[in-house]
């Protein structure tokens, strides 16, 4: 596990900054059946920063963040080697409880996926399954989470209406609120704005900016301007490998790898 650097000439592939890392990923490989989807990934996630992952479709960026909360295991044929440490603990250790990991690592999906329940019930779902029953606490959680997701003012008068009555952008912010309700440390976002209109996208982007004070955020995006606007660090994935991982302004102004430059200048992908 510690001999990684030997294979990795560029220290920047591991982490662009020397700060605390919440995730330490070493020599991580992943296969879907015979398809080698992630190849020897060494990539740390710094605490309380926004980390963007860019790359063309099928490059493994979604697979990577789904590995971080082990959601990737829902695919039956998946096989993994290497290690992912979360706060110093190997998440693939059999003693490590996946439910606990997912409680402190929230996820926002590409398409908004609220539950077919009221707005209120959507937000309190997480706290409720983790045993919080007191109405007073739940009420507070709902207000705090919806405010955190910049949705409170729009929905405070109709908390008990079905969440499917909200617009797509509101639904996505509700999913973020649902995620905030269990007070995670990390929020994984898998192309959270790809199904949204520009105004909703802007709102979600502003939200990400305000959330990074308290949360470590990993965001997968197709939109390079978005990565440039909102992230502190950016990783460029190609064919299941991390090609370059550096401070965002560095990546976009002065990429060291030719392939990164080609991608961000729009020559492919």
């Amino acid at each position, binding site marked *: 596990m510690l001999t990684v650097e030997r294979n990795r000439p560029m220290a920047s592939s591991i982490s662009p900054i020397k700060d605390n890392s919440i995730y330490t990923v070493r020599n991580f490989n992943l296969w879907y059946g015979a398809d080698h989807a992630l190849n020897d990934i060494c990539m740390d996630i710094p605490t309380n920063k926004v980390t963007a992952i860019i790359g063309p479709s099928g490059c493994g960026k979604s697979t990577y963040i789904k590995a971080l*909360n082990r*959601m990737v295991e*829902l695919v*039956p044929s998946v096989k993994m080697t290497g290690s992912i440490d979360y706060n110093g603990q190997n998440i693939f250790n059999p003693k490590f409880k996946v*439910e*606990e*990991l*997912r*409680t402190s690592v*929230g*996820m926002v*999906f590409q*398409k908004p*996926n*609220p*539950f*077919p*329940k009221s707005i209120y019930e959507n937000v309190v*779902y*997480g706290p409720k*399954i*983790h045993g919080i029953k007191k109405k007073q606490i739940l009420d507070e959680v709902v207000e705090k989470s919806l405010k955190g997701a910049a949705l409170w003012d729009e929905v405070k008068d109709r908390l008990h209406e*079905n969440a*499917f009555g909200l617009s797509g952008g509101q639904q996505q912010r509700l*999913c973020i609120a*649902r*995620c905030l309700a*269990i007070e995670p440390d990390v929020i994984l976002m898998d192309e959270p704005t790809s199904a949204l209109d520009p105004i909703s996208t802007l709102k979600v982007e502003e939200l990400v900016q305000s959330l990074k004070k308290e949360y470590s955020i990993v965001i997968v995006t197709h939109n390079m301007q978005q990565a440039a606007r909102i992230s502190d660090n950016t990783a460029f994935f190609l064919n299941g490998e991390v090609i370059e991982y550096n401070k965002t302004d560095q990546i976009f102004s002065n990429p060291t790898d030719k392939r990164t430059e080609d991608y961000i200048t729009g020559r492919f992908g």
Partner: protein
Amino acid sequence: MSKSVSEIIKEKKRRKFLPGYLEKAAPIIFGICAVISVFTTVGIIFTLVIETITFFNRVSIIEFITSTDWYPFTEKAPSYGILSLVSGTLLITFIAMLVAIPVGLSTAIYLSEYASERARRIIKPILEVLAGVPTIVYGFFALTFVTPLLKGIIPGLPIFNALSPGIVVGIMIIPMIASLSEDAMSSVPSSMREGALAMGATKLEVALKIVLPAALSGIIASFVLGISRAIGETMIVAVAAGSTPKFTLDVTESIQTMTAYIVQVSLGDASYGSTIYYSIYAVGMSLFVFTLLMNLLAQYISRRFREEY
């Protein structure tokens, strides 16, 4: 390549085999077929109503609905109190649902949430076989296998009783509830499951707190259809429940259901035009009302509990 596709299409159109009038006649032919079922329904209801009215000209409707004595074969003073038959039917239905709902629903949860593709490929066809067994076979299964088995547990159980056919009717309904509930649960989008799992929910929590509520309207509809089926079930009860109309809740006694009574009379115990003859229409009408109410209930419930997604 001598001709282009558009040329071939033009040529085919000119030599079109189906004449234009068929295009016009088609909806009429299809429509007539659709109307056949409507006419059949109307016809059946009409016959039921006419014969039932004849019956109520001879027997008081109040007695029919409120009396618990069903002795149509008594020479001197026959009495027609349908409550005995209704209680028999409900007793069977209740026992059947007690068996079918937990087993059927658990099967559905297993198939939709837990089973591997392989397990599903094995279990589903077997369930369909269970659904395809003729009910007369179930009847003999109840009489010659389940009843002796129950006798070992409950000494003194009579050969004809409500318990054994009730259980077997339940077994018969399991595939229906399992398969309809499974359909309802499988159609819950997996993005919802992922959303809950990503928040640290366990598989069981996802199944019970996300998928089950989301599929509830379909699941309840399957229960109600199961109840309808149990109410209308004939062969199993005619074979194994006996023919003793009795107003009772005791599952170990021999009883008679509405359907079994109709079978008994239809098999030749009554002459045409006699009160007994007309009584089967009245009983049939009651059955029809029961299942109709159940279907209306199913519709109401599936609208009431629908979680939009």
